[in-house]
Every structure is written in structure tokens, then in C-alpha cells.
């Protein structure tokens, strides 16, 4: 039997349970993170409209630049004030 060392950051346990999928978005707070790519706001405006229609409260966030990770403070703020986050990573 060979024993090897885990080359990863070991952030993930062998198995991880998924968060239970909510029955509906009604009354939940959903965060929309704009990564600052051009026209991303237009797309997210439309997503917000749809989510509000489902009864969700929407909070909007924005990264300073799409080329770098979101600042720690911003990630923390999203984590403590939202039930779900939608981040669109695309061109």
C-alpha cells in the first residue's frame, strides 16, 4: 500500500454535505455580485427584477475590478447578510 501526501490545501473534507435547497426564494435575501465587467449591471438588473418577482430581497454588490479577487471585507459582508449569492463570471 502506498501512502502519499495530500497536495491540496485540505480545505475540503473527504465528503461534504450540500446545503439543503430552499423550497422557495420567498423572503430570502439574495446577493448579486457584479464583477465589474462592462454591461454586467444591465444583466444583473434583469436578474434582480426576476428575483424580486419571486419574493426575494435583493442586495447588490460590486468588485472594484474583475481581474482581482473580491476584497475580504466585501466577501464577509455578503456572507453575513445573504442567504444565497449569484455571481456571474463570463464575458
Amino acid at each position: 500500500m502506498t501512502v502519499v501526501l495530500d497536495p491540496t490545501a485540505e480545505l475540503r473534507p473527504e465528503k461534504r454535505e450540500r446545503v439543503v435547497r430552499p423550497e422557495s426564494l420567498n423572503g430570502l435575501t439574495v446577493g448579486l455580485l457584479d464583477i465589474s465587467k462592462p454591461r454586467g449591471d444591465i444583466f444583473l438588473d434583469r436578474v434582480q427584477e426576476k428575483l424580486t418577482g419571486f419574493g426575494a430581497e435583493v442586495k447588490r454588490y460590486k468588485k472594484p475590478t474583475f481581474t482581482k479577487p473580491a476584497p475580504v471585507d466585501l466577501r464577509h459582508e455578503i456572507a453575513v447578510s445573504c442567504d444565497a449569492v449569484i455571481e456571474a463570471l463570463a464575458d
Partner: protein
Amino acid sequence: MASPQSAPLPDGLVAVVHKDCPTCVLVAPVLAAMAERVGITVVTQDDPDFPDFPQAAPWVVHDEDLAMSWHNRIETVPTLLRVDNGTETDRIVGWSRRQWEEFSGLDDLGGGLPDFRPGCGSLSVDPNLSDELAVRFSGSILKSRRIELASLEDDIEAMFDRGFTDGMPVVPPTEARVLRMLEGTSRAPDEIVAVVPPDLVECSVEKVAVNAVMAGCRPEYLPVVLTAVAAACTDEFNMHGLLATTMPVGPILIVNGPIRAELAMNSGANLLGQGNRANSTIGRALQLVVRNVGGGRPGGVDRATQGSPSKIGLCFAEDEEGSAFDTYAESRGFDRSASTVTLFPGEGPRLMFDQKSRSAESLTKHFAEMLRVNVSPRMVMQMETVIVMSPEHMARYRDAGWDRARFLAELEAQLMVAGDDIVAGADGIEEGMPTLVAGRQLPKFPPGGIHVVHGGSRAGLFSTTIAGWVTGATGSVTVTKEITR
């Protein structure tokens, strides 16, 4: 790592021996005499009944698991040591009557023996045992989670199955291999090297070593890999952006200084290609750290539309000795005696062909023509470039007496682009720069954006450009760091 405190030797004179060594057998009567006259502890590695003399029995210690020999770094038997209050104060190895008499203060040792016989290798450094002993005695310094591969699993396949590879086989990072890799640096295994994006996790020297083993590095490459990881994870270099961009770019590693020769790196024929272990594995090790420790994988945060071979790991050394210019590292503010690694955010290499220019002026003009199309002829001032200039092209500048500054000044003068030609819509092409560039002359590259490195074989009128990714505060800035052991 080895520490005498872990398995202290008894005080007084100590001899470490094993029966399988003819020199140890030869000196057995000497040890008996010393036991009688001044007292000595004999540490025997293999046979507990050796040396075989009755009066010595209380003096013999059997180092069955070799802990005493390993922790006290015994490399040769016999080794004669003096220990005061648990601390070794002196040692000699092999048999030399004169040395042994001086060491013990006794006369007439070993009558009838030859004056001198070299010793044998200690069992604690036996190549068949050394890996097992290193894991037994220092494996506990390794903090990584152990993964047991099932006996029916193929080790190489198991590494693929767990998502640890870049698509090519990796060397399974066993404890013994990682311990050997760590011998390549003086840094502690738990020292933090960098915070690796995109998951932004602290990465220890040990984790870099694990991935360096997997990439196929030798221990002596580890300092370069450690420095490259640190450079990649700076805010300026912005590994996150380079990884996440849809463009086909990765960190290109350029090595300068004495370490090139120490690692037998290739700066000559095929330096950007396959075939040299250091060139091929150092860049790959960095990419594996980003993948495994940082969590940056294609299809995940790595969003490259098409990618390029430079994302597997592209690393090469400069031919400093054959260049007519100062070294690339010197142009970055480092001393020639320093070993450095530079990380440039770049795509795959592209040929620059010129077989007919015989003057520096002609070749420079032609280089400019070929560089103007990097990324797009309509893209200016946003991306830098590396030029890997071949020896035969460099010869034009040596003949003309140009140095780096002259070459760059002449080249930059040729690289002014008419805004009218590259504005969006010009010549019926919708891509292009905003209308504000119309009527203006613009440099193709931003100031300081041309990085010239010399390398390649002696034959061939070919050079290479490696086009860059977005530079400046919102992109990646080229970073050079000195390599420390």
C-alpha cells in the same frame, strides 16, 4: 530532522560499529582493550553479540532501530566519539592507530594491526534503508494529510482519479520523496511561502515540496519553485487574474544567475521546448501549486477560452555568457552574481523569422514589424512582450556595438503606431481603439514593456516573441525575485 537529543549517546568514549564491516572486526580487540583500560560504550548496529568478548558485554548497546546512529548522523563505522553530559565533543572515523591513541590518550593500541584502514558505510546511511529511516525518524515533521492508496490501485492512476494532475502523469508524493525534496532548502517545512489564489490559502514550504515532487523536480530545484510561488502570489503579479482571464496566458519563468548551471538548465538549443528536466518541471511545479493548493483549475476559476501550452509550465534560462547585452536580470536591477527568477504573464511563444538582415538597423525594423501584430495589430500600450533573441540575431547587435539601451531605443522608435490605422472601424474592421487615438502616434508597448532575453542554439536566424497579458494595476506586472536557498 536528525537531532542527537532524540536518541542521546552515553557519556564517555563511544564507538559505533557493525559486524558486517571488516574494519570493525579488525578493531574489535582494540575496543576490548579500551573497555578494560578506560571504559568505552560500543554501539553495535547489526549483531548484538558483536564485539564478542566477555568483559565488554556490559558495554555493548544494540542500536537495533538505528535511531542512535541516525539522529547522531553516523555516516561511517567505526566512528569513535567523545560525549560529555550528553553532548558530542569530538569524533574520528575509520581506523588510524595514531588518531585512536591521541583520541583515547592510550599507548600501544592495536599491536599487530595495520596503521590505517578506512571505515565502511554506516547502516543508517545505507541506500536501501535511508528512505525508510528518514520517514521513521523525521516523517512527523510532515503535516500534510496522508492519503492511503488502496493496494489494488495503480499509484499513477490514483493520482489522476483524485484530480491532482494537470493531465500528465505525476510522481506520487510519498513521505520519503517529500523528505528528500525538502533537503533542497534550508527553510522549515511549515514556513508559509505565499497565500495562493484563487482560494487564497496559506501555502507552506511542505506543500510546495509535495507538488514539486509530483511535477518531477529534483530537490535542488526547490528553491526556484519556492521563489516562483512567492512571486506568482504577489499582488503585482496577480496570479488570480492571470488564471481567471479568458486569454491564453500563464506565468512564464525566466531564470538568471549561477543557479542555471547548478541545475543544468537549458539556455541553448530548444530552450523553450522539451528535453531538459529543470526547464520542464520547475514551471510545471508552480502550476501544480496553483491547481492543487490554490484550487485554480480549468473550467473552475481558470476560464481560458482556448488556453495555451504556456499554461502547462514554461520555464527557461538565459544564455548570459553568449550575450552582447547585459543580462536580463541586470536590466531588472539585480547583480550578475545573484540567481533570480522572473515571472512574465505571457502566452505561447511565436517565431520571429529573419534570415537576410545583415545590419542591426534592418533586423530591428523587421522585429518591429513582427512585434506590431502581437495579440492584435490594433492593440497598443496594454501588453508587454518578451523577446528571446537567438545568438545569430544577437550577433548583428554585437557587430554594430549596440547595447540593450540602444537596441530598445531603436526598436521603440520603430514601434510607433498611427492611431488612424488602429481605431475601431478603420479599414472596415470593427475591432480597434477608441476614437480618441485618431490622429495620434502611439507606442505598441508601454514604457519598459520589452523584455529581451538571450538564448537558443548557435545556428538559426530565428528569435521568439512571447506576447503578454494586460499589464499595470488591473492586470499583471512582471516580477523578478532573488532565489534564496
